[in-house]
């Protein structure tokens, strides 16, 4: 209950006992503020009284302000270098002092701002929602409904890791700035809060006198060794582009007998290098696990991220294999999760389910999302979907006339419908398999250009939530496209009515088998055995949840 020892907090007032012991370990309570209604603004969505409001960790302004100071340093530094006269940085003379004072002033202002921002930010939660109040000049009161929760991430930036702090990110559908960020909290608090929120989002009634809520048990399914990650990045398109570019520049230097072409290397080097480096650091040490709370992903070298995607939140999944990965039979698996894409920080790391893995790994990742493909023997179906072509395994492919518009892949592009989802495979050079569960279909479309019309073919498009996966089947015959459109609309509708509840633990069927205290069997999800999509029911932690 006490503020952390490293907090220079003057708040030593006696702390009122918290109403529920569940909230014991989370955050720094604000003395005397429990049950306060804010600002007297009694809107329709005013948080219910009786909430226990808490502040973020007191070191937050420093960790946040540090980024501001670093940015200022870069901006000032670049300006002073650019405006420097010929001969270098003007370290002699009076300019240096102006520079230092400017930085100091900016630091003080930034620090004060960050501190004020910390002062006014507070959060609370009950069984239905998380409430966050923030803003100095422009006040913001945000309520995040837990039954709409799409994912919870714990993010630890490098600096925060030195302090043992973490940020909790709640993602909801709505894109951009939706959801809530609670940062920073102490590691243990963030973990505990995540467990509490997940349990409540799942619809579990917490034990009346529950002490520290245990984390839902999990079993690790996916792992990416660093060596494979490095090799996969070296075999990626970006690295190949870089090598060709550097080689071309060297040739240009030799031919032109001057050193000037080297100047063109640097922008490309920096751009591609930054991309590869960010891929490496964010996907380093990647592990994926399954738990009753859904899929758990952990990754990151400098900034670590631990994601939890509850069951039924994956809208679409894609398995990709570039041409250079074919020899090793590596695949990359990405998913659409509402709320992850177009996040404000721009990167899409949240959407990667497996950065690189063998075929078995990739199929295991698919199994995490869709344990039941809806066919008796998924193995030959998936073989055909990943690397096959033609009408085997009941795939419907483009008609022969499509060879005029897609001579390479017309035999491969196609779809297969199972009782659970739509499988779309396409691409001859870069192979792709996209799977969309029927109940996650948003809307459907057909498109046809003049050439397609002459050839009697049309492109089928399935609209999913924002993300890396945008499923479509190019160049189906008119009849196939029309049939797929209408049959798929009917299937999506039927599946929607049968879809599980948003609070994934509330369905009556799972109450018995999936209590939180049930430890997973060690062999539940064999990491070394070949993938078994036909696992017996009792070893399928999420079967009924999806």
């Amino acid at each position, binding site marked *: 209950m006490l503020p952390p020892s490293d907090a220079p907090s003057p708040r030593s007032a006696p702390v009122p006992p918290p109403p529920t012991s569940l909230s014991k370990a989370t955050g720094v309570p604000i003395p005397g503020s429990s049950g306060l209604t804010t600002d007297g603004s009694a809107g329709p969505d005013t948080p219910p009284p009786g909430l226990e409001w808490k502040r973020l960790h007191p070191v937050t302004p420093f960790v946040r302000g540090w980024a501001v100071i670093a940015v200022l340093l870069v901006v000032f530094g670049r300006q002073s270098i650019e405006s420097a006269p010929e001969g270098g940085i003007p370290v002699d003379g009076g300019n240096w002092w102006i520079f230092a004072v400017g930085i100091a002033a900016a630091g003080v202002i930034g620090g004060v701002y960050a501190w004020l921002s910390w002062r006014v930010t507070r959060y609370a939660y009950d069984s239905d929602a998380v409430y966050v109040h923030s803003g100095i000049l422009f006040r913001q009161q945000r309520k995040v409904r837990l039954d709409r929760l799409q994912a919870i991430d714990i993010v630890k930036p490098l600096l925060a890791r030195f302090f043992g702090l973490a940020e909790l990110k709640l993602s909801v559908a709505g894109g951009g700035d939706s959801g809530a960020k609670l940062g920073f909290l102490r590691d243990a608090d963030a973990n505990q809060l995540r467990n509490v929120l997940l349990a409540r989002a799942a619809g579990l009634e917490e034990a009346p006198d529950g002490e520290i809520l245990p984390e839902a048990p999990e079993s690790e399914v996916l792992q990416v060794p660093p060596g494979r990650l490095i090799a996969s990045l070296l075999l990626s398109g970006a690295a190949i582009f870089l090598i060709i570019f550097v080689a071309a520049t060297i040739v240009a230097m030799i031919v032109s007998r001057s050193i000037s072409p080297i100047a063109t290397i640097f922008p490309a080097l920096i751009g591609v290098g930054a991309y590869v480096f960010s891929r490496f650091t964010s996907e380093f040490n990647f592990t994926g696990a399954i738990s009753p709370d859904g899929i758990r992903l952990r990754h990151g070298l400098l900034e670590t991220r631990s994601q939890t995607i509850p069951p039924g939140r994956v809208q679409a999944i894609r398995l990709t294999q570039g041409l250079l990965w074919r020899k090793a039979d590596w695949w990359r698996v990405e998913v659409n999760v509402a709320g992850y894409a177009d996040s404000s920080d721009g990167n899409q790391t949240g959407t990667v389910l497996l950065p690189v893995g063998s075929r078995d790994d990739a199929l295991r990742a698919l199994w995490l999302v869709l344990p039941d493909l809806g066919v008796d023997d998924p193995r030959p179906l998936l073989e055909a979907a990943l690397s096959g072509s033609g009408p085997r395994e009941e*795939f419907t492919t483009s008609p022969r006339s499509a060879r005029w518009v897609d001579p390479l892949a017309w035999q491969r592009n196609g779809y297969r419908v199972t009782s659970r989802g739509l499988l779309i495979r396409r691409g001859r050079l870069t192979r792709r398999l996209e799977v969309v569960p029927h109940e996650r279909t*948003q809307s459907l479309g057909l498109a046809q250009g003049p050439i397609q019309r002459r050839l009697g073919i049309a492109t089928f498009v399935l609209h999913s939530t924002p993300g890396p996966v945008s499923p479509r089947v190019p160049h189906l015959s008119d009849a196939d496209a029309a049939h797929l459109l209408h*049959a798929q609309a009917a299937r999506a509708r039927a599946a*929607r009515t049968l879809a599980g509840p948003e609070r994934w633990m509330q369905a009556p069927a799972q109450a018995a088998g999936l209590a939180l205290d049930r430890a997973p069997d060690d062999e539940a999800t064999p990491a070394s055995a070949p993938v078994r999509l036909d696992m017996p029911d009792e070893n399928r932690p999420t079967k009924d949840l999806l």
Partner: protein
Amino acid sequence: MNTMTEESASYPPLSASAPTTSPFEPEGIVWQGVSARLATARFIMLGIFFGIPLVTLVVLAVALPPAAPWLWIAAAVVVVVTAWIAVIIKRQVHAIGFAERDEDLLIRKGVMFRSLVVVPYGRMQFVDVTAGPLARKLGISSLQLHTASPGTDATIDGLVPSEAARLRDRLASRGEARLAGL
């Protein structure tokens, strides 16, 4: 082609699934068109867009006799392009259609590049009805359905405001009745 492969799935086939000549003309669908005033609105926009360059070219052609032949040719090209686009607009407006089915809304568009969108009512997140100054003057408005997917391009331009309001309320109530999560 094995068009009926997915019959093996456990969902019943849709009644309107018999292959037709064009996938954009499903059987048993009665399409509703939009107001012809949408074409008028687009003609006006077209006139503004190409009228100003045309007038400029003509004025220059009169004012600068040495360059006149080329300027007249340019003006003629502008006229031809305008006429061509006008024909396209006419056909495009004519091709817009929508149909309310029991469970979803169908929107069809385009002549050269055709598209057909099926939006289930249960997937609608919100409905927009908008009308700019020109559209208000002409008495039309446009309605847009939004799902959780940005790829859903479900816009119906050129609705009479009363029809737009009726459709909006109807869609909203149907959506509410069938609302599913994400």
